[in-house]
């Protein structure tokens, strides 16, 4: 990876991500449309997408904002949903030695599932420039999609008539379904679902999400055999990075 001139890896990363660009774009547009439907202003939807830039957690936050959940509950839930970034950041970090800290602080904001998967699939350890090329493509596609969805979303008048309110839980269920590979995964997912339903019936607000999510995952990490997790040097650990 040359640091002078146009690093070849940058282009490689961009090209390797093109296959993902359409679906990230559509995902962004769905988010933009639903968020406007839920009552956020277009500026808020775009601002959230640029400042938070983490699709799953944004999908989580919008119905909570719409339901008037306490701000703290929304922020803590966002944090927990995005905790997977720690894993990706730790895997990517060594590839970025030699970058200036200011750049690192900016690049950190661009950590995302798809670019991580692309960079890790191409080389281990991942190449910094491939990662950056991918992050450019993915962030552009996501924010562009959100902008388009925001513009189109206002067109639908009674979203629940078209089942659009169900799009939020549907996205979450689809994201879980693709990650369930081992028997332990099922145990954790079902355990969390059962505990969350039980808590939702007794706890106010949306605290059941954070409480059930953290409790059951921590319990799982404590009692499940650790060889269930990939060897520390393997970046497989992140669910979507391990497709191969």
């Amino acid at each position: 990876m040359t640091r002078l001139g146009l690093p070849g890896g940058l282009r490689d990363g961009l090209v390797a991500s093109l296959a993902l660009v359409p679906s990230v774009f559509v995902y962004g547009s769905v988010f933009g449309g639903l968020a406007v439907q839920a009552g956020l202003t277009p500026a808020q939807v775009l601002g959230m997408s640029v400042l938070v830039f983490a699709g799953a957690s944004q999908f989580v936050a919008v119905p909570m904002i719409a339901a008037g959940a306490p701000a703290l509950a929304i922020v803590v839930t966002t944090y927990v949903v995005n905790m997977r970034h720690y894993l990706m950041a730790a895997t990517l970090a060594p590839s970025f030695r030699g970058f200036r800290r200011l750049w690192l602080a900016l690049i950190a904001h661009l950590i995302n599932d798809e670019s991580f998967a692309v960079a890790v699939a191409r080389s281990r350890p991942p190449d910094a420039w491939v990662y950056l090329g991918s992050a450019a493509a993915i962030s552009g596609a996501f924010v562009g999609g959100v902008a388009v969805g925001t513009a189109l979303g206002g067109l639908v008048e009674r979203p629940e008539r078209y089942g659009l309110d169900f799009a939020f839980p549907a996205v979450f269920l689809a994201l879980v379904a693709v990650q369930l590979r081992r028997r332990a995964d099922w145990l954790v997912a079902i355990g969390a679902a059962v505990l969350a339903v039980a808590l939702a019936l007794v706890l106010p607000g949306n605290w059941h999400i954070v409480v059930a999510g953290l409790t059951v995952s921590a319990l799982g990490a404590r009692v499940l055999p650790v060889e269930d997790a990939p060897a520390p040097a393997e970046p497989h650990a992140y669910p979507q990075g391990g497709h191969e």
Partner: protein
Amino acid sequence: MNETSCVKPEARHGCAGARPSAGGCGGPCRGPPRRSVSRVWLVIGGMAVATYLTRAPMFLALARRPLPPRVRLWLRLVPLAVLPALAVPLVLVRDGRLALGLAHPPLWGAAVVFVLAARGVNLLASVAVAVAVVALLRALG
């Protein structure tokens, strides 16, 4: 849920623009169920900070040593626990009670999206089919 949010300082801050003299949240706050614009921005700001805190620390530390295996396992399990914790109550709990009847369209939508996605159907296509199922069942019901 609106009741509890009103006692939070953020909520009061949100009301302040409209009714500066209103102390506390008893009456004036409660008007139409409109979310104050500044409160939403406050939430977005909090989300941005919280998310940056999941990205930057490990990245800036340029850690040489990988995370301990148990921690890696935990971080891998968190989304697997949080997503069902989020989705399943949205489907099964309505107004603080269990909604388990077969006439509950989201239940069917949930089954459809789960099976399709688990079988490797594209995520957005699975969601679109499930949404259509829910819309159809509501139209029929």
